[in-house]
């Protein structure tokens, strides 16, 4: 088992290297003189010269990369051109907000996705199975920013039950925080509930046609016990791994969701940075999301090895 995990860790090194190359290369895409573009409104030649020095733009690209990487490894993601704050600080400030949103979304998605997936597998071929499948298809086909806008119209503008935008930290006022985050969390959760539902359904169908379920039925256990204790337990293991992977989708989805609900998280940070041409911030956000995703992916793999007795050496 340890050698499996070790092998997995080794495989990570080139992946992380390529991620850093991709993110660094983004700035090579800027048309024209990068120093001039990074300076933005600033046209002072001295400032431009300083940027050129700071990012070593006068040196060959591989050298620039090495300096950039050296900074990243010591936690220096550069500085925001716009507000002159280290990117790392900005990211750390916004990350908890998005993590709260993503965690709530994940809980909602698991309840809806796994719940409906199990129901539809148990009632395979019946009307409810069909209805759940249609619901899943509608879920994955609805652009979640549109769903967000329609929910704001209905629950905030029309009914006035929930605030249309804004964010309160749960440490300041728990209920106010729930009120500001429940709609965005639902919208975000909806984007992966359909995927989770489809996978749960097929995993459950497979488990229910297996020998151990037949044995459990044959020895006279009630259908409820068979489904909950035997089929579900086996079917849900891969779903937990999938859930970890779908976390990346949640981070993606948070970009638009936070934009619509004006939530000061990670997604809003990258969008504002794009509008302000604050390229170092864009790179920083991409780097942190990619790292988060890689770590989650690794944890999911390790978790899978741990819970799967066949892989335990």
């Amino acid at each position, binding site marked *: 088992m340890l050698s499996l995990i070790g092998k997995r860790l080794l495989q990570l090194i080139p992946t992380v290297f390529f991620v850093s190359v991709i993110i660094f290369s983004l700035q090579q*895409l800027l048309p024209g003189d990068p120093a001039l573009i990074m300076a933005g409104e600033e046209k002072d030649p001295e400032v431009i010269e300083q940027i050129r020095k700071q990012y070593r733009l006068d040196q060959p690209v591989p050298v620039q990369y090495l300096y950039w990487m050296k900074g990243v490894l010591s936690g220096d993601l550069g500085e925001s051109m716009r507000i002159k704050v280290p990117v790392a600080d900005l990211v750390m400030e916004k990350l908890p907000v998005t993590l709260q949103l993503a965690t709530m979304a994940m809980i909602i998605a698991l309840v809806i996705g796994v719940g409906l997936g199990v129901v539809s597998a148990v009632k395979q071929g019946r009307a409810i199975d069909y209805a759940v499948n249609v619901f899943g298809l509608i879920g994955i086909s609805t652009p979640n920013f*549109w769903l967000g806008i329609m929910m704001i119209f209905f629950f905030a503008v029309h009914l006035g039950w929930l605030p249309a935008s804004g964010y309160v930290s749960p440490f300041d006022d728990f209920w106010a925080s729930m009120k500001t985050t429940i709609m965005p969390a639902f919208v975000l959760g909806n984007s992966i509930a359909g995927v989770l539902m489809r996978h749960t359904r097929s995993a459950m169908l497979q488990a229910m046609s297996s020998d151990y379920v037949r044995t459990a039925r044959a020895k006279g256990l009630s259908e409820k016990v068979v489904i909950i204790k035997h089929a579900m337990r086996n079917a849900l293991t891969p779903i937990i791994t999938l859930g970890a992977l779908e976390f990346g989708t949640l981070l993606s989805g948070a970009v638009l969701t936070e934009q619509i609900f004006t939530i000061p998280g990670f997604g809003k940070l990258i969008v504002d940075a794009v509008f302000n041409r604050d390229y170092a911030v864009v790179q920083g956000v991409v780097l942190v999301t990619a790292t988060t995703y890689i770590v989650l992916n690794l944890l999911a793999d390790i978790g899978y090895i741990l819970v799967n007795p066949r892989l335990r050496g």
Partner: protein
Amino acid sequence: MTAVPVNAVQSVPDAIESPGRRAWRRLKARKSALFGLVVIVLLVIMAVFAPQIAPYDPIKQSWTLVRKAPSAAYWFGTDEVGRDLLSRIIFGARASLSAGVISVGIAILAGVPLGLLAGYAGGWVDGVIGRLTDAMLAVPFLILAIALAAFLGPSLGNAMIAIGVTATPIFVRLTRGQTLSVKNEDYVEAARAVGNPPIRIAVRHILPNILPALMVQATLTIATAIIAEASLSFLGLGQQPPLPSWGSMLNSAQRFLSNAPWMAVWPGLAIFITVISFNLLGDGLRDALDPRSK
């Protein structure tokens, strides 16, 4: 519909269906997939003949028509500068559909050769391509697309490139996996044995066999790409004003939710219908092209 039993000897040659014909027959039997296909065809017609179909000029502003609710003259109502929403939805199909098709085209053109190379060559080539794919997949789809579009500069063309590049690893992985699974089949071995060069084997013998899987993935990825284009346009990184796109229409609609909610309804509905049609067709194609299913 009766399937031909595998072990039955077919003496009548015209009873053997070509794979394409069989797939079409199976696809037709699936109502939902057929529905998706019909809607897509209608949308394409709408996009191509937009100037003939649209009742008004989609970019003509009128200060006397600002934010009018849907009426007999303006079926979908008008927007914040008095433009006809129905005409803008019709013209907006051009941005969405072309973005969906072109970005997936880019992803296929880049991803399929890389996947064939990785799967067929193996060794360190496979290792490098594999890790590069892992790296791209490690950055969440929309975040990578936004970053690319931001650095390339805001335009519909750049949004297509950004989405296409972001979707490339999907096709690399798929092609590689499929190539590995057919690489040691007898017919590929035979082609190799008679001295065909690798490129000919890849194009003539491997590619046709992985085409069905590619078609399914392409259809489903178009759905994802259309949502991605709408998202980028919503953020101002896609189609630039005054040209209409469904994403940017939703963006301006958000500011007028309390007094002109219809502005938000139509573009979202248009995206939804287009995306669900591609998803239905993709699901149907998967069933129809699966040689194991009947």
